[in-house]
């Protein structure tokens, strides 16, 4: 099944490289969730995430000739999205802080047993510094290993591992503080 999908994507990539729009559309359909989710979890703003995802695919369209395989395509999309997210966040740092609490969640069917915990976790991840945030997203959304993250972000593997541990500790602290505040607000 997976091999079949790989073959289909390989064919779509070949068609897209030759200038076929249908082939490119298939690539976008396949990877839109990945690109949009990285941007959304990083920026916590669906319109900014959509804008960024569109720019990533536009950039891909202009650089299709440099893509060698479907694996390379996936790596390229993750790398470009990660770097653009970090750049965007730096540019909009001031606005981002204001927007964080204002944004509404996009409508998605949730399978999480604890919506409140999930939302608190998302907000806590979004409040991490840029590099830490991206490492956590790549690790837990994209299920990448430290070596893959290190290659993507051009960092030493040990730095990725230590950053990941530090981020988890920070998330625990932030979450404890956030739930503590909520307890005081309720009682």
């Amino acid at each position, binding site marked *: 099944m997976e091999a079949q999908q790989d073959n289909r994507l390989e064919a779509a990539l070949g068609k897209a490289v030759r200038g076929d729009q249908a082939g490119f559309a298939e690539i976008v359909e396949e990877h839109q969730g990945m690109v949009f989710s990285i941007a959304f979890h990083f920026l916590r703003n669906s319109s900014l995430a959509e804008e960024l995802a*569109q720019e990533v695919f*536009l950039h891909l369209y202009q650089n299709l000739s440099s893509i060698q395989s479907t694996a390379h395509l996936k790596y390229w999309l993750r790398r470009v999205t990660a770097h653009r997210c970090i750049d965007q966040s730096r540019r909009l740092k001031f606005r981002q802080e204001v927007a964080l609490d204002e944004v509404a969640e996009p409508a998605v069917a949730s399978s999480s047993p604890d919506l409140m915990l999930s939302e608190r*976790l998302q907000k806590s991840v979004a409040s991490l510094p840029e590099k830490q945030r991206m490492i956590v997203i790549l690790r837990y959304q994209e299920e990448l290993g430290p070596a893959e993250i290190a290659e993507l972000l051009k960092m030493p593997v040990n730095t990725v591992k230590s950053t990941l541990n530090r981020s988890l500790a920070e998330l625990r602290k932030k979450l404890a503080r956030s739930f503590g505040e909520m307890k005081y607000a309720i009682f």
Partner: protein
Amino acid sequence: MPFSEEDLRCALRRKMPGPAFTQRVLARIGQVEDNKSAQANPAVSRPGFFSFRFWPARIAALAAMLVIAIGVMQYDRYKTHVKQETAKRQALLGIEIASTTLNQALHRALVRPAKPH
């Protein structure tokens, strides 16, 4: 509040963009391609000399040029006139001075007593 890695995975699960995202991407690509081709081939997009598109601007420019030309001509005429007036005044003054001098000389000649011989 403790949480597991599974909770984090759940919180960061993939989300899909709004509907028709692919169509929006393709439309944007089309727009960029159109702009690119228009830039690459400016003769196609640039309106011709007699195009109706820029007529109001052309008429305004022509009117401004006409006003400036008339202004320059008028100023030139005024300068010539001033020069002529100055020359006329100087000529009259010259004639007046010459006339006075001649009159004085004539008067001296006529009223000078005759020398005794």
